[in-house]
C-alpha cells in the first residue's frame, strides 16, 4: 500500500510537503498493527485466564450441545461423569461420593472445585470432526472432553480413611513437579445428593462441610511455624550452629509466660535439638531476639501475607508482626500462636519448597485434557513459580526437619524403607480455660530424593505426634507399599 505513495513522491515536486502525510500514515499503521498483535496475543496467551474465570457463565450455554466430559484420576479412574437417566435426562455421577467432594467439586449450585475450574474443557468437544458433523446431522449432542487430573485415588483414599471421621485436611504434593496427588477435606458431603442436602449443608455452620479446608481453612500453625523462626535466625546469623539455650520448661518475659509442652525441661540444647523437640522456650527467646519485622520478612519469603500461585480459590496466610510488636506477641508468634493463620495447602507448599531445594513448583490439578477417545487435546507441564529461599537455606531447614523424625517429636515415622523429614505442631485454639489444640504435621519423603510432600491437620487432634503423624505415616506407607 505504501508502494504507491513512494511512487507518488518521486513524481511530486513538492515531496517534502507530503512527508508529514507519510509519517501520519505510518503512525496509524503502527497503531492498527499493535491492535492486531494485541488481539493475537490475547487469543493465544491470555484468553484462557479469562475464559476459565468462575464469573464466566458463557460456557454453560455449550451444555445444550455438548455432554459434559468426565473428570478422571491420574490412574484413569472416573471421579465424575455425566450419565443419562432412563427418561433421557442427564445427571452427574460421582463414584467416590464424599472422598473427592471438595477437590472435584460439584457442577450445580454455582459449581465448585474442578467442576468449576475445568468447566470450559468439560463443555468443549474435540471429538473427531466428522463424528461431530454426524452428531449435528442427527441432532445429537457431542461428547465433551475429559479432564485427567493429577489426583491419585490411592493417595486420596489413604488420606481420606486415615483422617477418618475427624475434621481436618490433608494435602499431598509432588515437590519436583507441583502435582497435587491428594487433597482431602473433612467434614464433607456426598455430591451425588447435593440437591437433597443443599439447605442443610449451607446452614450447617458447625461442620462447614462445603468449605474446602485444605485451601480455605485458616488455622494457627503452631510449632510448624518454627520453620520460619529458624529461617529467620539462620538469615540473621548466617549459621544455626552458634545457638545455645538452657531450657527450664518455661520462659517469662514482661510478665508473659510461655511453657513447654507438659513443662518438659529440655536443659542445654542447640537449635537442632530445640527444633526436634519443639522447644517453645528456645523459640520464644529466639523470636524476641529477631524482632517482629525480621520475623515477618522471613515468613513473607515463604509466601505468608502473599498471593499463592494457585488456580483454585484459597485464603492467603496471615503473619502480622512488625517492628512495633510487643514482646508477648513476639513470643507467641515465634512458636506459631499469636495472630498467625495458615491454610493446609500453604503449609504443604512450604514443605514442598524445602524438599525441592528452595524452588516452589506451582501446584496444579489438571494434568491433561483428552477428547473422549483418549486423544490428547492439551497437556499441562510442571511450572516453577520461583526460588523462594536459596538452596543453602533450604538444606539447613531440611536438616532440622530430618532431626524431628530421627530423634524428635515424629520418631514414629522412622525405621521404614523410606526416610522422612518434617515438623509437628499443636496449635492451641479457643479462649480461657478449655483450650484444645489442632494437630499438625508437615514433611516429605524421601529425604535424599523427595517423592512427596504432605501437610496434615486434624482439628482438636491434640499434639502433632498424637494424631497428625500417624495420618502422615499412613500416607507415606500407601505411597511406598501399596
Amino acid at each position, binding site marked *: 500500500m505504501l508502494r504507491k505513495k513512494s511512487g507518488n513522491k518521486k513524481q511530486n515536486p513538492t515531496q517534502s510537503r507530503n512527508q508529514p502525510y507519510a509519517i501520519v500514515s505510518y503512525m*496509524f499503521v503502527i497503531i492498527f498493527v*499493535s*491492535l492486531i498483535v494485541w488481539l493475537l496475543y490475547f487469543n493465544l496467551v491470555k484468553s484462557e485466564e479469562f475464559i476459565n474465570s468462575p464469573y464466566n457463565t458463557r460456557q454453560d450455554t455449550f451444555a445444550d450441545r455438548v455432554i459434559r466430559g468426565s473428570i478422571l484420576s491420574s490412574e484413569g479412574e472416573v471421579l465424575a461423569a455425566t450419565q443419562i437417566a432412563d427418561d433421557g435426562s442427564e445427571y452427574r455421577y460421582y463414584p467416590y461420593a464424599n472422598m473427592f467432594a471438595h477437590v472435584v467439586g460439584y457442577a450445580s449450585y454455582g459449581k465448585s472445585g474442578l467442576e468449576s475450574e475445568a468447566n470450559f474443557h468439560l463443555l468443549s468437544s474435540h471429538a473427531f470432526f466428522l463424528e461431530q458433523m454426524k452428531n449435528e446431522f442427527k441432532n445429537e449432542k457431542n461428547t465433551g472432553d475429559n479432564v485427567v487430573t493429577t489426583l491419585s485415588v490411592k493417595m486420596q483414599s489413604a488420606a481420606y480413611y486415615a483422617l477418618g471421621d475427624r475434621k481436618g485436611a490433608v494435602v499431598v504434593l509432588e515437590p519436583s513437579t507441583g502435582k497435587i496427588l491428594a487433597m482431602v477435606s473433612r467434614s464433607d458431603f456426598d455430591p451425588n445428593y447435593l440437591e437433597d442436602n443443599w439447605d442443610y449443608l449451607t446452614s450447617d455452620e458447625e461442620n462447614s462441610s462445603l468449605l474446602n479446608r485444605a485451601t480455605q481453612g485458616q488455622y494457627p500453625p503452631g510449632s510448624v511455624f518454627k520453620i520460619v523462626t529458624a529461617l529467620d535466625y539462620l538469615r540473621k546469623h548466617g549459621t544455626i550452629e552458634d545457638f545455645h539455650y538452657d531450657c527450664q520448661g518455661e520462659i517469662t518475659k514482661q510478665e508473659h509466660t510461655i511453657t513447654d509442652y507438659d513443662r518438659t525441661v529440655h536443659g542445654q540444647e542447640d537449635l537442632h535439638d530445640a527444633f526436634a523437640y519443639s522447644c517453645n522456650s528456645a523459640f520464644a527467646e529466639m523470636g524476641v531476639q529477631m524482632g517482629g519485622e525480621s520475623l515477618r520478612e522471613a515468613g513473607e519469603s515463604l509466601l505468608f501475607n502473599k498471593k499463592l500461585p494457585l488456580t483454585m480459590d484459597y485464603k492467603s496466610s496471615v503473619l502480622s508482626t512488625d517492628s512495633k510488636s510487643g514482646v508477648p506477641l513476639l513470643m507467641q508468634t515465634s512458636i506459631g500462636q499469636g495472630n498467625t493463620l495458615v491454610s493446609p495447602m500453604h503449609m504443604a507448599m512450604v514443605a514442598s519448597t524445602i524438599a525441592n531445594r528452595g524452588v516452589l513448583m506451582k501446584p496444579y490439578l489438571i494434568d491433561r485434557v483428552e477428547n473422549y477417545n483418549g486423544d490428547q487435546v492439551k497437556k499441562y507441564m510442571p511450572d516453577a513459580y520461583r526460588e523462594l529461599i536459596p538452596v543453602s537455606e533450604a538444606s539447613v531447614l531440611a536438616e532440622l526437619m530430618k532431626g524431628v523424625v530421627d530423634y524428635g517429636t515424629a520418631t514414629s515415622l522412622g525405621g521404614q524403607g523410606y526416610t522422612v523429614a518434617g515438623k509437628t505442631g499443636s496449635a492451641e485454639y479457643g479462649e480461657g480455660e478449655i483450650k484444645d489444640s489442632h494437630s499438625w504435621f508437615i514433611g516429605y519423603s524421601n529425604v535424599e530424593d523427595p517423592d512427596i510432600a504432605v501437610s496434615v491437620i486434624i482439628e482438636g487432634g491434640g499434639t502433632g505426634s498424637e494424631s497428625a503423624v500417624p495420618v502422615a505415616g499412613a500416607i507415606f506407607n500407601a505411597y511406598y507399599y501399596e
Partner: protein
Amino acid sequence: MINIIVELSKYLLVILVILYTLQCFQMFRKQETHRQKLLLGKQLTVIVLFLSLSFLVLYLKSGELRMLLFYGQMMLYVAAVQTLYRIFYKKASMLLVNNMCMLLSIGLVILCRLNMEKAERQFMIVAAGSALALVVPVMIRKMYFLKKLTWIYAGVGVILLAAVFVLGRTTFGAKLTLFGVQPSEFIKIIFVFFMASLLWKDSSFMQVVRATIVAGMHVLILVMSRDLGSALVFFITYLVMIYVVTRKPLYFVGGMAGGAVASVIAYFLFGHVQQRVTAWKRPFSVYEQEGYQIVQSMFAIGTGSWFGMGLFQGSPDSIPVADEDFVFSAICEELGGMFAICLILICMSFFLMIVNISLQIKNPFYKLIALGLGTEYAFQVFLHIGGATKFIPMTGITLPLVSYGGSSALTTIIMLAIIQGLYILREDEDEELEKIRKALEQNAQEEIGE
C-alpha cells in the same frame, strides 16, 4: 442439519472476509483501469456472498421471516448505492463505496443478530443518509465559500457542545444526546472544516494559537460531559492537522506531552476517569461495577477464539451495550478473531486510501479536510477496538459504520461523501477549478443571501 450449515458458514464467512481484505490491499497496487474494475467487481461479489450467507444463517437460526426481508432490503441498498454512484459520479472511487457497503453489511448483520428492531431503525437511517449523501459531492464541488466560514464553524461547534453539556440527557454516565441526536458526532465534521479553513493559507504561530484555543474549548466541554472518546478524537485530529500543515514535529510531540499531562490531571480530578482506568487495569477487582462490561467483553472475545461461535451461537447479549461500544467484541465472539483481525485491516486500508486521496489533492484546503476526516475515522476505530479488547481503557465510542447509532452512522456516511467529493475534484485541473469558481461565485453568494 442447521448446525452443520452454521458451522460451515463460520469458516466460509472468514474466508470471504479474508478475500475482501486482500482485495482492499491489492487495490493499492498501480494497475490498469480494467484490472481495477475487475477487482472492484470481485469485491462486490464478496459483499453479496457475505450478505447472502450471513442472512441464510440468521434466518435458519432465528426462523424469522423478517431476516429474509431484511436481506432483500440490504441487497436493494447495495444495488442502489452501487448504481447511483456509477450513474451520477463516473469518477467516483468505487473502492470507497465498496468499503462503505462492506462495513455497513458487517454492522447490520451483527445488529440483526443482536436486536432486530434496532437493526431496522439503523437501516432506515443508513438508507436515508446515503440518499442524502448523494448530493454532498456536488455541494463540495460548488460551495467555494466553505473555506471562509472559519468562525461560524468554531461558534456552531462550541455552542452546540455547550448546549449538550447544559441541557443534554445523561446516558451511561455521559451527557451525549440532545433531542435524540448526538451533536458531537456532527461537530466532528464541522471541526475539521474549522481547522482546515483556519490553517490552509496561513499556518503562522498566531493561527496555531487560535486553533489551539478553539480546539481546547471543544475538548474541555467534551471531557466535562464525560464524552472522553470524542474528546480524544478531537484532540488527536487537532494535533495531526497542526503537524501536517506546519510540518513541525515539535508541535506534535509537544501536544502529545501536553495531552499526557492533561490526562494525568484529569485522572486525579475526575472520578469517572479513575473508574475507567481501574476497570482497565484490574477488571476483576471491580467486577460488580465498572469492571463488568470489560470482563464480559473479554469473555466474549476469548470464547469466540479464532473462528467464532457462529451467529446466534454465542451470548454477546451479556455484554452491556454490545451493539454500540462493544460491537467489536460481539463480532469477535460470533464471527471470530480471524474475522475481527480482517476487520481491523479493512479499517486500516480504508484510512490509507483516504490519506492517498488527500495526497493527490492539490487544493490545500481540501487536502486538509480529507486528512482531518481520515484521522478522525482512524482514531475512532482505534479507540473503539482498543477499548473493547482492553488494549487501552474504555472510552465508550462507536465503531464507525458498524456500531448501532444513527448520529454516528449518518456522520460517517456524510464524511465519506465529502471525501468522495474531494476524490472526484482531485481529477480536475486547477485551471478548470478556477473557471468554475468564477462562474459559480455569484451563484454561491446568492445562496448565502438566501
